């Protein structure tokens, strides 16, 4: 049973007077606990595809099911609930909340999205800080952390709610090469440890080799059906 299944998935949007076809009828499936990468040049549709998988955007045509849910049927609130329950996000710019410490950033979804009780929350945050090697940086705010450290915190935050799926749009784009590798390695370790499916996008050929399954997008179309690395 696939975790994600797309059938003739398409997305178009209006840019001024011009209708842009960002995704043009793609088909793919992603199995649970896999480590998947979407690659392609800028403008190929990677972010649009990840946004649809993440229920941040609706398909214009076709069908997309994530965890047996047709994402097109979710309204704003239902989509938020679905994301909160099932999906974690890692962003290119880290997107940590600047006034919160590393600890508080990881705690945020447990507090504001899933209402975990304090003790359980604390145990989970400490577990994740240890898992991403950030225990000694727990009280630092994002502006006191390096790019790699921020992304570690972001990985921990994405995993905090026991998400079944983590989406990462260009998670290594703002990191140096060594740090980028370490983040990808960390993500893979987390997949192994928690059984979470990781789907990320990149246009870095070296990083894409780390994925177990790679989909290549060009001009909104999949040009391979999911090559296994």
């Amino acid at each position: 049973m696939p975790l994600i299944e797309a059938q003739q998935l398409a997305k178009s949007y209006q840019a001024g007077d011009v209708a842009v076809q960002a995704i043009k009828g793609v088909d793919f499936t992603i199995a649970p606990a896999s480590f998947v990468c979407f690659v392609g040049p800028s403008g190929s549709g990677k972010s649009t595809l990840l946004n649809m998988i993440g229920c941040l955007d609706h398909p214009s045509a076709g069908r997309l099911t994530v965890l047996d849910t047709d994402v097109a049927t979710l309204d704003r609130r239902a989509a938020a609930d679905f994301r909160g329950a099932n999906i974690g996000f890692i962003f290119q710019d880290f997107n940590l909340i600047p006034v919160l410490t590393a600890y508080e950033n990881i705690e945020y979804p447990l507090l504001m999205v899933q209402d975990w009780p304090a003790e359980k929350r604390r145990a989970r945050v400490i577990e994740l800080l240890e898992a991403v090697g950030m225990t000694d940086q727990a009280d630092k705010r994002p502006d006191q952390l390096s790019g790699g450290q921020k992304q570690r915190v972001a990985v921990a935050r994405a995993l905090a709610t026991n998400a079944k799926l983590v989406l990462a749009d260009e998670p290594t784009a703002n990191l140096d090469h060594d740090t980028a590798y370490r983040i990808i390695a960390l993500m893979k370790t987390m997949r192994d440890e928690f059984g979470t499916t990781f789907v990320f996008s990149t246009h870095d050929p070296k990083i894409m080799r780390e994925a177990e399954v790679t989909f290549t997008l060009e001009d909104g179309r999949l040009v391979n059906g999911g090559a296994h690395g």
Partner: protein
Amino acid sequence: MGKVLKLAARNLARYRRRTLLTSALIVLGMVAVLVFIAVSGSFKRLIVGQITDSMLGHVQVHQRGYVASIDNLPLNLNLKPEAVAQVEDALKGIEAVEASSPRLKFGAMFSNFTETTSIRLNGIDPAREAATVPLLPGRVIEGAAANGLLERGTLLVPEILARGMKLKVGDTVVLVATNLDGSVNGKTFTVRGVLAGVTGPGGRDGYLHLEDARELLRMTGAEVSEIAVRLKDPDRLKPAFAALAARLGTVRDSQGQPVFEVHTWEGLSPFANIARMIDLLDLSIKVMLVAIVLISVMNVMVMAVYERVREIGTVSAIGTRPGRILALFVSEGLLLGVLGTAIGTLLSLGIVYGLNVARITFAFGREEGLVLAPTLGGADVGVVCATVIAVAVLASLQPAWKAARMDPIQALRHI
């Protein structure tokens, strides 16, 4: 909700400069309003106290039609003895009444044997008058009141007349008055004291004993022009007035018309308009406070939303419900309001305390050395605090709504 409030408090604590600036604006507005309310209230109470406690009393009862002709001091509209008894009975039945004083008001010619002028006079029962308008004895600026305010055959002369006619305590003067039947009668009196004038109706009247007044006017019955009433609690003026008016309103003449008319001091003194202006100023200052809070909180919250667009996009993407985002920003507005009102109230109480310690004096008309004694009532503080907090919440609603409705994709792209 507790978690949202906690997070909102943390956000405010960490966006410290913005929080302090907004709180300072709210505090400034709160202090301006509360101190103004306290000072203007004190000023109003002092002046109203001067008017009611030195001449008018809190309520007055007349025969119907008397007040419309009060400038002429008409003797034919006096309360007859049986009417006086009815009023006295009614007053006894009202718990709020502390004292009452019958007065016989009339105009007379006043002579020191070399000069003659006109004078307005009040015939009073000295003990009842002092109980009804307790500041009256304090207006005696020359002459001792060792044996009470007045004795038979003596007169309290208004200062303006005493100065103009160069009268001293102990001088003999003559009063000549026209009776109800048109005949004239004269009587000599000794000046017992000189009365300081006060602002308002009756503030420059002379006083004599009620029995002397009746003798001068050759009255056979115990008629009076008015009965002044003092209340135990001036703040309960309206219900006491309503109770008295209701009781006396049942007394009708043969044509079915009410026999009496009842007035509060507000209906008799032009200062009531000044008091209303003070109330209006209070209201204007409150409206300005609302504007200050509305603009400052809204401005801060709009900026907060604008500066935190990516943060909103992030928390929205990770599954925070729109309602929670709304609640977070509204909570920040609420806490700003609470913080501002708490500091503002404490600061205002401190300033009011300082003003009381400083014992600032001021003059009103001819009265000098009135000591400002500002106080802040719980109701005033409560209303202002509730208004500020409500406005702070209201001001944060629009930006909060905008944040909650933000498209996460657009928000995440925001630079």
